[in-house]
């Protein structure tokens, strides 16, 4: 008998036991580990996919940002250019202004210096001219000139206008009738008499109270001066000389202004004024 039922049953049991054992020791763990691996791989793929997506999004974001940056850069550059231009213009203006200021100040200084110099020059020239005139006149001053001067003075006194007479009168009243005569020459008796007569003619009401004091004053070039209580009547060469001086200075001014117009921009002292400064 090749079929042994005992063995068959035993083998069936054996086989079922083997199925159970292999299920427990082989298929279960293997399948489980494979599934786990599959899951992990899927997860990894998913993670990779997610990361890729993220990276792509990042790339897009960065690209966008870059573009924005480019735009802003251009804007910033443009505004910076503009600002720089404005700043440059402002600085240039400032510098120009400063230069102008400096120049003006400089010119003003120069002008002032020139003026000072010219004034000085004027004074010197006037003084010099007057000195010359004075010297001449004092050299020429003799008895005849004295007489002429005297008669001129008397004539002026006699020809005083009513207004001046009134003033002189009130001045006499203030000065209690005291009259001082300043003279460049020594005053003689005759001349004093003539003066008193003239004053008496001029102011008839006061001739009795009048007291005339003569005082020598060599500074009055060929001149006479009557003073009473702050009022003054004078005739002397000084006034003529002053006129002369004024005229000379005027002439000089004109000359300087004409020359100054030509040399003002250069800010230089006129060439022909320089030697004058050394005088």
């Amino acid at each position, binding site marked *: 008998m*090749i*079929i*042994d*039922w*005992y*063995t*068959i*049953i*035993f*083998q*069936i049991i*054996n*086989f*079922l*036991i*083997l*199925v159970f*054992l*292999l*299920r427990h*020791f*082989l*298929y279960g*763990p*293997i*399948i*489980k*580990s*494979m599934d*786990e*691996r599959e899951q*992990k791989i899927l997860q990894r793929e998913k993670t990779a996919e997610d990361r890729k997506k993220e990276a792509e999004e990042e790339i897009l974001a960065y690209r966008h940002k870059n573009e924005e940056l480019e735009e802003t850069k251009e804007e910033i550059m443009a505004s910076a250019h503009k600002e720089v231009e404005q700043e440059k213009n402002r600085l240039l203006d400032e510098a120009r202004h400063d230069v102008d200021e400096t120049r003006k100040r400089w010119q003003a200084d120069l002008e002032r210096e020139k003026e000072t110099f010219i004034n000085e020059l004027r004074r010197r020239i006037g003084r010099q001219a007057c000195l010359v005139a004075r010297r001449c006149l004092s050299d020429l001053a003799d008895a005849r000139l004295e007489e002429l001067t005297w008669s001129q003075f008397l004539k002026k006194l006699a020809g005083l206008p009513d207004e001046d007479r009134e003033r002189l009168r009130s001045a006499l009243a203030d000065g209690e009738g005291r009259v001082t005569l300043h003279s460049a020459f020594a005053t003689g008796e005759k001349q004093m008499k003539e003066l008193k007569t003239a004053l008496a003619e001029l102011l008839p009401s006061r001739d009795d109270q009048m007291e005339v004091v003569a005082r020598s004053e060599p500074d009055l070039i060929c001149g006479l001066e009557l003073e009473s209580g702050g009022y003054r009547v004078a005739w002397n060469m000084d006034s003529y000389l002053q006129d002369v001086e004024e005229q000379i200075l005027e002439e000089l001014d004109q000359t300087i202004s004409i020359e100054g117009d030509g040399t003002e921009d250069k800010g230089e002292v006129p060439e022909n004024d320089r030697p004058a400064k050394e005088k």
Partner: protein
Amino acid sequence: MTINPDTIVYFEWGWFKINATILFSWIVIFLLTFGSWLVTRKLTADGPLSRWQNLLEVLVITINNQIREVSRQEPGPYLPFVGTLFIYIAISNILAIVPGFNPPTSSLSTTAALAICVFIAVPAFGIGRQGMLQYLKQYIKPTFFMLPFNIIGELSRTLALAVRLYGNMMSGTVIVAILLTITPLIFPIIMQALGLLTGLIQAYIFAILAMVYIASASQVHKEIEKKGEK
């Protein structure tokens, strides 16, 4: 000459006896279980795989793919049964090359036992998948008159399964035994090698046929589902 390992009895106590078939089955079972345990106790789901794990994975994946191809269903529920059939038969047949080893598959008792397992498993899976009524309806298709033929077919294919495997395995042993008496040198080795090939092929055929039967028993379910959908 003993060609039936059932007759080799190593231990006997009353009705309980241990013959060569049972003993060598146990050896195979022990080897398989112990080997599986050795490999699977330190499985890794990540990182580099050990070559043994890799081997077992390839084996399991291959069996799964075969089941999927044949049944066109997910292999999960069938894997332990069909896979064990294949592995058990294959290992038994391969170990036949070891001198002194009597492959349990060369005993008709073993093959019959396996065939009976399939015989039981087919309706078990069929009923499990589609219910008792649907499964039983299968026997009266296309007409009621086909019932006896269906039942005969069921039985005969179980018998065929058992005898096919037994015949092939026994023949291998017998051929080697005969050849040893005629040409005791080199030639039996070639036959042994051929026996290995035959053994593997038989293991494959047995497992695939079992799967086909099981699949055919649960295939109807799908058709019904399709009809139901319509």
